[in-house]
């Protein structure tokens, strides 16, 4: 292992490590724009210039591997001069339109200008005027003036999606990012270019002008779009909370961005996952409890459901169709509660669409399919249940038009617990709202068998409660032994005690990045 000295501190570094990586590993950020750990090295921004003793010129930290005996200075006067110079160069043709730029608040130009710039420019010539808000794809807009030509987006399309839609056009200071003639930036992962753009050149149509990023409440959670379980950060708008007395109106998801997890999704997420919150927001939410289609108080609906479920269970005629997007906690709660009512035959709805791709997307859209397998054991199929039961509990948040119509025609009574008004809810004898994916804590198990934490990102809408809470309330109303859970963590504790696959797990051990089992 080469021994190097960075800013006076000696460290052992694996051969091949670059100065930038070595410094980052030690928590010493060398400013950079074009370097991205998920992409090849371009070395074009020149922001990471550092001084290496015995080298005549400054070297770029992103490209220079450490070598035995190397002595590096990342903050010497020479380096600081160069950084200030680069900042000045970056900004001479930059429009400085931060007041109307979505990137403001999470912009590397702003951050580095404050930290490394001189705070003033000597440039007095006219700035280049280039195209703004160029529509380059279904999700992405390009602002040519803000672009600093770091080429991250080009490299992403060349190296990650291998679709090659983007390239540089023109030359010198007129160099511009663009799409090749006849193409659109239209691949399944296009939104990632917005995340990796260090400035405001690439913005997401769906997030554009929606909120200031500093009004977002960011929660690390897991995407529910498919069995991959990509690690994401959900940003929830808080702006109106500050402006109005009744704040919940804006307590909604504004965007989903990837969170790095090399074991699961690397640095990326797909566009479908990124936009999944919009589908949920566009769907009609079940906000109040209903019996026979009429709104009733929550407790009344729970009591009505308890009676029906209990009756069917005691005759051995109760079925349960659960969504593979329910958390392990919800699944365990239903299993436990229905067992105490007398037992039910379970089926897990299959949601399969398209095919696995080479990058992240899985055909199995059940974010917790593996978890359902672990919690429920071998569950039956929906069709098998249909003929054997008189009453069925449909639990979950699936938006796919369910085949509950079939169940209803077969004279089966449906008790629905879920967040959306769709097939099952409309045909249900009793419908009880439950929290959606972004409204409750829990755990998912992805297709690799990795247990990961889903988090409550904002308050549930209306009367909606977490599924495990509804289950516990039902048990209470049915007069059977009711669990005393007050949080998802307590459900997980019971689950860990009951199901060996979860033994020893608690939120802390699952952590931000999950644990493989």
């Amino acid at each position, binding site marked *: 292992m080469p021994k190097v000295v960075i800013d006076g501190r000696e460290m052992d570094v694996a051969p091949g490590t670059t100065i930038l990586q070595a410094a980052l590993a030690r928590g010493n950020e060398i400013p950079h724009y074009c370097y991205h750990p998920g992409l090849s*090295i371009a*070395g*074009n*921004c*020149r*922001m990471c*210039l550092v001084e290496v003793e015995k080298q*005549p*010129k*400054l070297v*770029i930290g992103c*490209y220079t591997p450490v070598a035995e005996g190397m002595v590096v200075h990342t903050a010497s006067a020479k380096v600081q*001069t*160069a950084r200030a*110079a*680069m900042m*000045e*160069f*970056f900004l*001479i*043709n930059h429009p400085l339109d931060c007041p109307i730029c979505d990137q403001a608040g999470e912009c590397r130009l702003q951050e580095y200008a404050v930290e490394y710039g001189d705070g003033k420019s*000597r*440039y007095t*010539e006219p700035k280049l005027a280039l195209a703004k808000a160029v529509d380059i794809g279904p999700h992405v807009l390009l602002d040519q003036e803000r672009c*600093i*030509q770091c080429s991250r987006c080009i490299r992403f399309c060349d190296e990650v999606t291998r679709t090659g839609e983007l*390239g*540089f056009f*023109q*030359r*010198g*200071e*007129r*160099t511009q990012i663009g799409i090749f003639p006849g193409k659109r930036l239209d691949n399944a992962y296009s939104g990632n270019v917005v995340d990796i753009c260090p400035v405001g050149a690439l913005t997401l149509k769906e997030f554009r002008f929606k909120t200031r990023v500093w009004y977002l409440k960011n929660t690390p959670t897991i995407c529910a779009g498919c069995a991959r379980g990509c690690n994401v950060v959900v940003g929830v708008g808080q702006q109106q909370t500050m402006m109005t007395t009744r704040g919940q109106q804006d307590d909604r998801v504004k965007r989903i961005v990837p969170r790095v997890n090399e074991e699961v999704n690397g640095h990326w997420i797909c566009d479908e996952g990124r936009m999944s919150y919009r589908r949920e927001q566009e769907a009609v939410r079940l906000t109040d409890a209903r019996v026979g289609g009429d709104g009733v108080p929550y407790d009344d609906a729970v009591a009505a459901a308890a009676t029906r479920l209990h009756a069917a269970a005691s005759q051995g005629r109760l079925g349960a169709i659960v969504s593979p997007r329910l958390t392990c906690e919800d699944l365990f709660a239903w299993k436990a509660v229905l067992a105490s009512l007398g037992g039910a035959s379970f089926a897990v709805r299959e949601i399969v669409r398209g095919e696995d791709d080479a990058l992240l997307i899985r055909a199995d859209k059940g974010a917790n399919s593996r978890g359902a397998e672990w919690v429920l054991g071998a569950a039956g199929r929906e069709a098998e249940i249909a003929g054997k039961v008189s009453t069925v509990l449909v639990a979950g948040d699936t938006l796919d038009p369910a085949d509950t119509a079939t169940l209803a025609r077969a004279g089966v009574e449906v008790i629905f617990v879920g967040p959306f008004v769709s097939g099952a809810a409309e045909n249900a004898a009793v419908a009880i709202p439950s929290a959606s994916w972004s409204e409750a804590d829990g755990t998912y198990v992805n297709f690799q068998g990795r247990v990961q934490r889903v988090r409550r990102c904002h308050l549930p809408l209306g009367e909606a409660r977490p599924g495990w809470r509804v289950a516990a309330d039902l048990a209470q109303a049915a007069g059977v032994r009711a669990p005393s859970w007050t949080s998802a963590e307590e459900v997980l504790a019971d689950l860990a005690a009951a199901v060996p696959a979860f033994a020893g797990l608690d939120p802390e051990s699952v952590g931000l990045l999950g644990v493989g089992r």
Partner: protein
Amino acid sequence: MERILTRNVDREGAGTLAVYESSGGYQALRRAVTTMTPGAVVEEVKKSGLRGRGGAGFPCGLKWSFMPKEVDPKRPHYFLINADESEPGTFKDRLLMERDPHLVLEGSLIGAYAIRAKAVYIYIRGEFVFATGVLERAVAEAYAKGYAGANILGSGWSCDLIVHRGAGAYICGEETALMSSLEGNRGYPRLKPPFPAASGVWGCPTTINNVETVANVPFIIERGADWYLTLGKPPKNTGPKLYCLSGHVKRPGVYEAPLGLPMSELIYELGGGMLHADRPLKAVIPGGSSVPVLRADECEVDLDFDALAAKGTMLGSAGIMVMDSSTCMVAAMARIAHFYHHESCGQCTPCREGCGWLESVLNRIENGAGRQADLDLLISVSNNIIGNTICALGDAAAMPAISFVTKFRDEFQHHVEHKSCYEGTMALQGVR
């Protein structure tokens, strides 16, 4: 003095194989491939002291010796000839290619043999349409005579010759950008290392030489390194050199002389002296537009790599641009800056942003809108470019700027104070 490199250029039928062979052409190639090992060729060239004529003056034989000694069949060696000659003030390679193409080809083939190359690619500047045609005809002749292609001169060694036209970008004369361009990609310089000998074009071991450099090689092989060492100023500045003389002289043109020709001899004897008797010498750019300028009082200098380096400038591509007292130095520098602004490839930040900035400020000063702070600003922006870029284009733009502003500061100052050029000097359009 015997003309070596240019011995054929003004002969009747110049450029044909017949004329070339009648002057002993291709005998050096025959000697190299039939009687010498590649290593022996490298050693001979090393011994001759031949330094690259493209600009940097790197020892040619040493460069060749960096190539792997064995060829990995999966990674063939390539020999590239940089014929992109686009440095302002430089027109020597064009002369060789147009008037004695077989000399270029013979030198290329000997070099290719020395580095065990599978093929020679001559990357020629796109604007050189005529020279391209001449070279292509010569290549066809060479193939027909067995000087190129399979089993060259019965030696068992095979090598292809390919002429590739560039598309008009100055940056493609930078060796790694040239490789990117040859591969069909955008002409962007690459990060180094790896150096071309380790990984060049298509990721294979590659050597790249300037046209004039390889034109020296047949003579070294034919007459020996010892003979070559007698020319010029041995040991470090040996051999014949082509000087491109332009500007305010009576007879501009390409002149051949041994390395180390005194500048005064070039201007006042070979070049016939200053264009106008009443306009004395004011400044000389000695190595193409990218090198620092010399004031008239600095022009007692020999035109070789080391003498010019001692004066703080470079021989570069030996494009000697002579400026008389009518030249407005601000206008001259603004024109140079315009070139680099236009040609910056835009890959890395300092050059992309800095070259345009330099031109804008220079134009402003020239047009009477200069400010006192602009003079130091030009130097500061230049210093912020120098050494911080991927390739040397940024330096090429910044080094002249520093030298013009420092050496002719009074003239720049005059522009700022009086909003006009020095009396008797002409703005850009008036240069003649």
